[in-house]
Each structure stands twice: as C-alpha cells, then as structure tokens.
C-alpha cells in the first residue's frame, strides 16, 4: 500500500565549499536552490478573509542559512508550510501574478500530489517548534519513520541494517545513542528536539525548514540545539531556512530577512 519515493535524485548542483557567508554566491547570480516569487496566502474564515502573505519573494542559495524574523502572527509558519509543500499558495487573483516556488528550478506549486509527497520526503526536512514526535514510537523508530515512508516496505526491509546504523550514528552524534528504545515522553524538551532534527536529517534532504526550533527551550538549551544545527550544516552543506522571532537567535544565521506585513524585507545579516 505504501508508495515508496524513488531514491534517485536529479544530479546535485555542484556545491562549492560552504562558507559562513555563502549568501554572496547567491546574490551574484548562481542559480539559487530555492526561489520564491509572488507568494500570496489568504485564510478564509467564513466570510472573513485573513490575508497573511502578500507577495513574498525570497531566494535561498545552496548551503545558505537564512533566518526569518517576524512578529508573532506575521505568517512565518505559513510561509514555511508553503515552501515545504504542506500547503498551496493562493491562486492568482485580483491582478496577483501566479506564485512560484522553484526548488532546483522545479515549480513546487505545480507539483502533483505524488510529486509533492516525494518532495516532502526527499528534499525537505522539517523541524517544528513542538518537536512533533510520535508518542507511541521509540526514539529510533521516530527517526526511521521518514526512511520507512521513503523506501516502502520491501526497500526498507532490504536496507534495514544500514538505515538503523545510520539512525544510531545520527543519534549518537546528538548525544542520544543510549536512548534509542526510549519513548519521546521520557526525554527532555532539548532531547526531543535533537531527535526531531535527526529525523529531519535521516533522508539527507537539501533543504532544512526549522520553525522556531528553539522557541520552546531555554536559551542555553536553545543555543546547544543551534550548535548542533550549525555543525551539521558545516558537515553536509545543507541549506537551512529558520524561522524565529528572537533576533539573538537569528543572528547566528548567514542572513536575516524580516517578514513584515506579509512581505519579506531584507534586513541584512
């Protein structure tokens, strides 16, 4: 019944060594990993329209870490959901051009359901503010969940040993190697978030979307989580879009953009 998502990917764009200020690469014209243009999103509550995003434009260079700063309710999560293929932007109306979210040149907005599922599974890794682990599954099963979805039953069974080893390695890197059998409820908030990050990384996605990954943690724990993310990025060169309303946290990113009145305003980093 499960529809495994193919494991082959389009050829990677050659990532030149990722540096802390990779944003310049993008600005100077190399094809961005992600290009968002003219994104509109309006929620409808009965007869009342709640406009949230009015024409967001955003480019993300390959290997770049961008922080989105915005007040609560400004639409940061909404933007992340749209980019992550969990929701669709408004159809073109009232003179708005058609929105586009180009990931490696492919328009996510025009994706079929199957392509969207594939995109979410292989290309995007989500990290949520409230961890969103499945409470019934052990830590290692939670981390493996994405690979189960990706490979399907038989593929997973065939690769099980390798995948388990990989999950173990990831969790060990996060200092959770001895807690594989534990349930999420037996972990602290910081530990849960590490598990969630390990899960997001299991399928080795090119784009990490982190929605206030430290929002629920104290500063110290939050900082250690950010250290972990920075380390991973340094190792694998992942592109990361991180949402926060805390300027101090945003400051750790390569570049900061502001979400104000439904638009992205460059704020310099």
């Amino acid at each position, binding site marked *: *019944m*499960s529809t495994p998502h193919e494991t082959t990917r389009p050829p990677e764009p050659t990532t030149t060594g990722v540096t802390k200020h990779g944003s310049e690469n993008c600005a100077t014209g190399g094809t961005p990993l992600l290009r968002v243009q003219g994104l509109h999103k309006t929620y409808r509550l009965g007869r009342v329209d709640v406009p949230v995003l009015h024409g967001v434009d955003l480019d993300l260079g390959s290997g770049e870490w961008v922080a989105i700063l915005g007040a609560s309710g400004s639409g940061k999560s909404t933007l992340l959901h749209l980019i992550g293929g969990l929701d669709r932007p408004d159809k073109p109306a009232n003179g708005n051009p058609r929105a586009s979210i180009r990931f490696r040149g492919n328009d996510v907005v025009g994706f079929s359901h199957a392509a969207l599922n594939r995109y979410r599974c292989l290309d995007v890794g989500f990290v949520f503010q409230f961890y969103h682990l499945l409470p*019934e599954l052990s830590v290692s099963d939670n981390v493996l969940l994405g690979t189960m979805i990706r490979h399907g039953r038989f593929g997973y069974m065939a690769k099980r040993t390798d995948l388990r080893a990989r999950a173990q390695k990831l969790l060990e890197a996060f200092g959770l190697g001895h807690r594989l059998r534990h349930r999420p409820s037996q972990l602290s908030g910081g530990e849960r978030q590490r598990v969630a990050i390990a899960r997001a990384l299991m399928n080795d996605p090119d784009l990490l979307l982190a929605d206030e990954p430290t929002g629920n943690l104290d500063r110290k724990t939050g900082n250690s989580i950010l250290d972990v993310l920075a380390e991973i990025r340094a190792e694998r060169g992942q592109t990361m879009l991180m949402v926060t309303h805390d300027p101090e946290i945003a400051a750790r990113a390569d570049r900061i953009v502001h979400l104000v009145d439904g638009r992205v305003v460059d704020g310099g980093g």
Partner: protein
Amino acid sequence: MYHALLTRRYLTSKVMPLLASLAVVLCTAMVLITWSVMGGFLNNLTQAGRTLIGDVRIALPNVGFAHYDDLIAKLEADPEVEAAAPIIEAMGMLTLLENRTEPILIRGIEGESFARVTGYADTLWWKPLDEPVKKDRQGDDLRLEETDRTLLQRIYEDGLTLTEIDPITGQPEPAIVLGMEVGGWNKRTDWGGYYPRVQYVAASDGGSELRNIFMPGSGELVVLVVPLDSQGRPLDPVTRKFPVANEFESGLYDIDKQTVLMELRALQRMLRMHAAKRLVEPGGSGVGGSSPDPLAGFFEEDTEGVSEPEVVEDPARVTSVLVRMADPDGDLEAFREKCHAIYAEFTRDHAGEVPDAMMIGIETWEDANRMMISAVKKETGLVLMIFSFISFTAVFLVFAIFWAMISEKTKDIGILRALGASRLGVAWVWLRYGLAIGVVGSICGGLLAWAIVTNINEIHQGIAHTGEWLGSTLTDKPWNWYIWDPKVYVFKEIPHKIEPWKAVFVLTGGLLSCVVGALWPAVRAARMHPVKALRFE
C-alpha cells in the same frame, strides 16, 4: 512499513482498540454460537422428519391406490432406489386406559419394508442395550437390566414385525406400536430416557393398587377408524382392540405424541382397503374374503354373512408408498422426478385402475415437512438477523473508536504527511488497523464460539448443577436452571457442532464489519489537510 509499525504500536498502547476487539470477539462468538446451535437443531429436526418418511413419498390420501406391489417392484428395480414401502396414513381415535379417547394419526406399515425405507428399527425404544446412552451416567436405563434381556429382545422383535403372540391361541396377532409420548405412560428422565409410569388403578376389591404401566408388557388398546369406500364416502366406524408390541421415539414430540403404528394388513382390513371380492347386493355393499394370509383367522367374522355371488374384484390399496434413495446425499429433486417417471410408467401398465400421474402427490421429505422446517428455518433466520443486527453495533463501535482515535492522532497524521506519506498511505494505516482488530477479534471470537459450542452440553450441565446447589444452599430447594431440559425438549442434547463454512462466513463478516467501521475514519484521515493536522490542538 510504517503502517505495520504504527498498527502494532497503536494496538498495543491503547485500551480502546482492545475494547473494540473484545466487542468483535463477543459479536462473532454470539452469532456463530446461535447459528450453530439453531442450525444443528434444525438439522436434527429435519433428519428426524426424514427418518419417518424416507426420501420421497408417493401419496393419494384417504382413498389410496391399488397395485402398489407392482409400483414397489418397479421402483425397486431402479438402481437409484434403495427400497420402497407401502403405508397407510389415516386419522383415528385411541381409547386410553382411563377411557379417555384421543385423536391420533394411524400409520399402517409392514415392519420389514418400513424399516428398510426409514430408520424405523432405530426408533423402537424397548430393546436390550449393552452400553448406557451418553447422558445416562449412572446407567439407570431399564433396558440395561441383564434380567430383562429376553423380554426386551422379544418386545423388540414384536416391534419390528408389529405382531404379538396371542397367549391363548399361540398364534401371532397384529399389534400396534405407540409413539413414546402417546397416553403419557412414560416418564422422561433428566438424561433423556424413559421409565414406565407407576399409577394407582382401581382394584377389584374396591380399593386401589399401584401398577407399573408398561404398555408393551401387557397393554391392549382400542383403536377406532372410519373406513371410506373407494369413492371416498365414509362408512360406519370400526373399532378393534390391539396389543401393544413396542413403543417408538422419533425425537419429534408431536409425532411421538400423536402417532400409532399398526400392522398394515390389519389397518387395510379396518379401513376396507384390503384385497377383497366385493359382493354387490341390490341395497348396498358388503365385504368379501381375501387372499391367503397368516392373520386370516382373525378376520373370519368379516367373511360371515356373504351370500350371493355378484362379485367385483377390489385389489388392496394403500395411501402412500415411501421411497428411499440409494445414494443418501443424492439430488433429492432429481430423485423425485425419477419417482414421478416410474409412477407414470406404472399408470400406463394399469390404465384406468390407478390414479393418474397428475393426481398423485409425489413429494420429497423436505416438502412433506415444509411447514415444520420452514418454521424452524424462519426462527433461526429471525434470531440470526436480530443477533447480526446487534453485531452491527460492532461496526459502529469500531467506527466510533476510530473516529475518536483519529481525532486524537490528528497530529500524527500531520507529521506523517509532513514526512512525505501519501493520502493513501495514511488511509492504509487506519484500514490496516481496523483489519488487525478484525482479525484478532474474529479469530478469538471463533475460538471462543468453538470452545463454547463443543462443550455446550457440559457447560449447560454445569450451570444446571450450580443452580441446584445454589438453590439447595440458599433456599433449601434446588433451582431448575436447565434451559435445554431433556424432560421437555425434543432432543436430548444441545447440538454442538460448528460447520466450517458457517465459521468462515461469520469470521469474514466480523472482519468485514471492522474494515467497514474503519473505512470512513480512514478516509477522513486521508483527506485531512496536513497543515490543519499539524496545527491541531
């Protein structure tokens, strides 16, 4: 893969699905037990019906038809026919001991041919036994008594031939065999056997004495019938006293209560259906003598008063011929057609002398017992329908539990979607979950039903004993908790077999109802918007 994992985890970490499983267990077990027991009951009942009339009955009530020996010869010449037997069925009255008179069905039979066509020999009650019957744990059965063996053997043989030796003349005389419940002279025991009742009867000295009423021993009863002439007009009633040769138990209360079997030729004579030369006199009709007959001596009085020889030859008649198939599992309907064809051939040989093939009734034992069978079938169907209806609550239970679980697990659904699971994949998690509950529930339900049905008699006994004990300790009087009391019920034992196809049917039903119950919630889960699911509080 994640489907299996989630199904397993959800199933083992929650109480609700276990409750749903339990509901499925109980519902499947309930339906299967009811169906097996009621179906077994119906089966016993119909088999008892078959025991009594064979497979096909060729009948023309009241008037009957002649040349039946020829018909039987024709039938028995066919390889599909195991045996055929002539019988007469007539209504009559039986005068019981206390001068009560009761209407009865009289069946005139030839013991030997009747036994070949039906299970007659097995239904005869009084015969010597070597082993106690199954429920007779103490071996109380009178028929086990070593001292009575010769008597019982003689009574058994008398029952088979429907004759009894006249103690005065030393000659066999025709006898009757009573249904076990006729007259109420036998008391049914709690293991399903019979004892002759003990009764006070008026003694010659004016008082009363205690007498053991064992009809086959010395009982004689008066039978009254109303003969018809060959045009079907009633003649004067005829009464005759017969010794009781034995008693039979068919298992069907109504039949055991109302049927008396009589030696065929005796009944033919009483009903004026025997072979006779009829002397037509100017003012009416008389009855003439007949062919050589070992019992002819008893009917001598009939031949008296015959004077003038204006002779009409009337062949003997019976009302029915019972036929038994050679292949007990053969196609009954086809066999009926076969009998019909043989009968048609028979009418060609006796044109004008026997009823036309269109007039004669030829029916299978199922048709003959249609009323009874369809009544029990309807009852079974009704009970089954009610229980299936109740079981339908299992569907709603699964539905309600799943609906609640999906609400509770909304976030999990959002997470799965965020990780790339398809709608179908999410739906499958829940359908699979329903399937798992259905499989577990159905199998456990099937096992429970099997355990209960195969031991139902023991369980019943246990309950009854508990009732007796509880009653004795609490109220000094044992309570009767027998539901299936052999003293009252037709069959001694509760049917205790599960037919595999019924089990398969019911278990599949249990499984399907779970899947059906899970279907809508699964669709709801699949249609859930990932973001709404993730934002769900």
